[in-house]
């Protein structure tokens, strides 16, 4: 169930008040909002700007700078594939192409059934086990096409 606008405004208000007095509160607030809602709703932006006494443009600038802040809800599962050099050397591009085909979506997109969001990531620090992936925050190594199919089957019953 999606919360109503009034409910979410109240919830965002609580988050903002919980961060009062913190120096440099914008990024912690954005993290907290995303943790609560799964993304940063457009309606939250003026509330955050107003409370922190910054402009809407500035909040937008920060949200859009960080790839991990999302402005739309993600799918139920988030699959991130590493695209950095070590993984590329171990066939990450091939795995990525396979993932896009299997899911029928491109980078930053979510499958129509809302089950999976596919995102690129640049280095998970798991170069020794390349190609690497991150599924719902869980790090996985040596992800080849077969392993990927199994993963997808697991999250997409």
């Amino acid at each position, binding site marked *: 169930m999606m919360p109503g606008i009034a409910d979410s405004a109240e919830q965002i208000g609580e988050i903002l008040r919980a961060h009062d007095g913190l120096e440099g509160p914008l990024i912690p607030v954005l993290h907290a909002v995303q943790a609560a809602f799964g993304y940063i709703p*457009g309606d939250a932006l003026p509330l955050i700007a107003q409370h922190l*006494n*910054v*402009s809407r*443009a500035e909040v937008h600038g920060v949200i859009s*700078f960080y790839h991990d802040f999302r402005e739309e809800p993600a799918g139920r599962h988030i699959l991130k594939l590493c695209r950095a050099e070590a993984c590329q050397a171990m066939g990450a591009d091939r795995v990525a192409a396979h993932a896009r085909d299997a899911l029928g979506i491109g980078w930053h997109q979510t499958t129509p059934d809302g089950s999976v969001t596919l995102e690129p990531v640049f280095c998970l620090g798991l170069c020794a086990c390349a190609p690497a992936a991150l599924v719902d925050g869980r790090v996985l190594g040596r992800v080849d096409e077969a392993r990927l199919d199994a993963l997808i089957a697991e999250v997409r019953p």
Partner: protein
Amino acid sequence: MKDFIIPDRDFGTPAAKSKVMVTLTVDGFDVTVPEGTSIMRAAAEAGISVPKLCATDSIDAFGSCRLCLVEIEGRAGTPASCTTPVAAGMKVRTQTARLKTLRRGVMELYISDHPLDCLTCSANGDCELQDMAGAVGLRDVRYEAVDTHFRAKDNSGQANPQWMPKDDSNPYFTYDPAKCIVCSRCVRACEEVQGTFALTIQGRGWDSRVSFGAKTDTALTSDCVSCGACVQACPTATLQEKSIIDIGTPERSVITTCAYCGVGCSFKAELRGDELVRMTPYKHGKANRGHSCVKGRFAYGYASHKDRILNPLIRESINDPWREVSWDEALGFAAGRMKGIQEKYGRHSVGVITSSRCTNEEAYLVQKLARAVFRNNNTDTCARVCHSPTGYGLGQTFGTSAGTQDFDSVEQTDVVIVIGANPTDGHPVFASRLKKRLRKGAKLIVIDPRRIDLVKSPHIKAAHHLPLRPGTNVAVVTAMAHVIVTEGLFDEDFIRTRCDWDEFTDYAEFVAAPNHSPEATELLTGVPAKDLREAARLYARGGNGAIYYGLGVTEHSQGSTTVIAIANLAMLTGNIGRPGVGVNPLRGQNNVQGSCDMGSFPHELPGYRHVSNDAVRDIFESLWGVRIDNEPGLRIPNMLDAAVEGTFKGLYCQGEDILQSDPDTRHVAAGLAAMDCVIVHDLFLNETANYAHVFLPGSTFLEKDGTFTNAERRINRVRKVMAPRNGYADWEVTQLLANAMGAGWTYTHPGQIMDEIALTTPSFAGVSYEKLETMGSVQWPCNEKAPEGTPLMHVDGFVRGRGKFIRTEYVATDEKTGPRFPLLLTTGRILSQYNVGAQTRRTANVVWHPEDLLEVHPHDAEVRGIADGQWVRLASRSGETTLRARITDRVSPGVVYTTFHHPETQANVVTTDYSDWATNCPEYKVTAVQVAPSNGPSEWQVDYAEQAERSRRILPAAE
């Protein structure tokens, strides 16, 4: 953008303020600059321009474009010259083989993602990217653009997701992302210069784009106030004036002064032939320091609006249609009528109103027309309805009728009190300078019934907002003085050396009385005592304290008393006579200071000298060869009263729309209708012209020479950039009228009028057009004692000798709320519109403010069943009007607020004829009203619209 006049070079980074000087060599030349100066600026001082893109001297260095690299002897690498400060003995090279290669490489990368359509680009010839490509000798681009930001379709014909369409939502400029090099100059200008923070860079790396507001915003829906700072900062065609796109680049420019508010910004009028291409803020303007607002920068289209009347009009009676006639016929008709009236009703039956929109020279001539040709003192000016209490209050306490500081002073202030003013809307360029100081840590106290933008906006927050009930200014300011006196926070040294100690002890005894304590006045003013005490302590002990005030102080029945109370506060705390302090009225109109200086008031000759003073009259009598009345003449309200009574029959009104701007519209209309000859001299058939018999077409500020005097007493030149479209400058029209009445004036240039002013008026004795040419501008007093003018007043002593403390007893206005009229109406201005709107309503500024709205607190709206956007009836004891409501908690419960820019609303139908006890300045800011839902215009509005339409008929000119 590039500057068109070479002397306006861009030094790349702002000037450093240090007094310590440092010497270095740049390319073998010695150069000495203040410590903290960037190498880029030092090189520019030596005449060497280091190539640059992201730097410009209105904003801090950023170091992102990597084009301004230099080599420094003994240091590794190639640092950016914009972010590297100078050091003593440094040896800098700006042009080496290594630097040349690096710069070409950088330019190649820039150009690889930029359309090469220079010939058809609107910035052709006005583009720094183009210039830099030339400067670094770019001859070849090795990169083939595959992914770009500027092609709408990629090579395979698919839509390019990186391409963003042009945003032309703002009426005056466009944002074309295809031309953007992401130098961030616009974002930084919006933040550092304007202080609005409407722009950002969204995304990062390859995805970095300039964005107005949040994701779904356009330039128009964002917080953008259209000040033009971003357009000014943009080096390419990305942010470009629509007028440049339409016309092309200008070929010459003339420095002149804006004709909107009292800040008096200097502008360059940039032209092609006699077509005005754009107005750009002049960097060396001492009031604005290169900044502008939406009005001065863009809203000049009224000068060529189709409504402008270019030929004289006359009619027998105000019920007839107008007849277009020659200048000779119109002037003969006007002169004949005025002479006839004087023969029949006596010398005192006619008068003039001088304009605060016209030049000093024009105001001087109009009052001279009254005094030397009409032979009476019936001259008044629109300052009657705005800052006449300032003249009285500061005259009594300090000895001069003007602000004490220059605008630069705000850079050194620590605590600012803004009282009864809304600078971000009324005086936007000053507000930007103030906000810049506040962001650097100065504290702000706002005393206003309404939560103005300065109370809280991005990166600005007032330390205290005292939301007083309208009409209680005196009680609040006196309570602040109570705190300062009773808590011993006053500056005894200052008071003993600079003021009269006996007057101080009398005043101290008065304010110390318990009935002036914040606790005692809280019930009356609605201001929490604790907040008021803290605010008073902050002002008294927070360092340099400066007070800026506006019409929310003066337009009250106790306007003069509040001005005195403010002056007392400054004297108590020793905040007078040095940079960063002072008492500063924010004057409303471009030349309201000047029109007052020029003797527009019925009791004062030029230079604020009373008409009863024989010695002063002698000066003018011997020069003009006439006798001058030693009795003051009629003020505007007296003229109207006398007209209704039948003793005042003729009026020459230059550049003021008293019907719309003066209080109690019905009374003004009745007065005008009772006159036999009303001569309106204006650009448009304004509301007053509905009651006129003669209409003399006026000229705009672009069409004449002269001077304006701004709120800091600065005399700025207004320069003729094109021939008057109506045939004559306004001073010429006044002279023609005077001569038609037999005056025999022979001025051929406004400079001669200024010479006459200097000859007769001690505070202007040193002013001449020659001096203004060399100095740019000068602040009066300018005479033998201060040949270069006077930026700060009362430095070593008050003009009147010793500062005078005067008791300020609060007396409630007679305008009281009651069961029938339970709410208090207060009025104000908005950024995009200007006063009666005659000019701004005839520009694209209407997109921001198409109609006047009534701000109502949600509580008051709810009990009356008023919804946001609904038509409401606003009624007072004087009259009623209808307009739409806006529900907002900016106003307190019990207070409603509106603007007075639109004649359809006629907010002044509602305001009363109560006025300041000393000066008759109307009490616009307090009217008891009732608000109720409505479904259309009031009867008055319908009648008025019909009458206005009927009276504006013009018969075709006779063949």
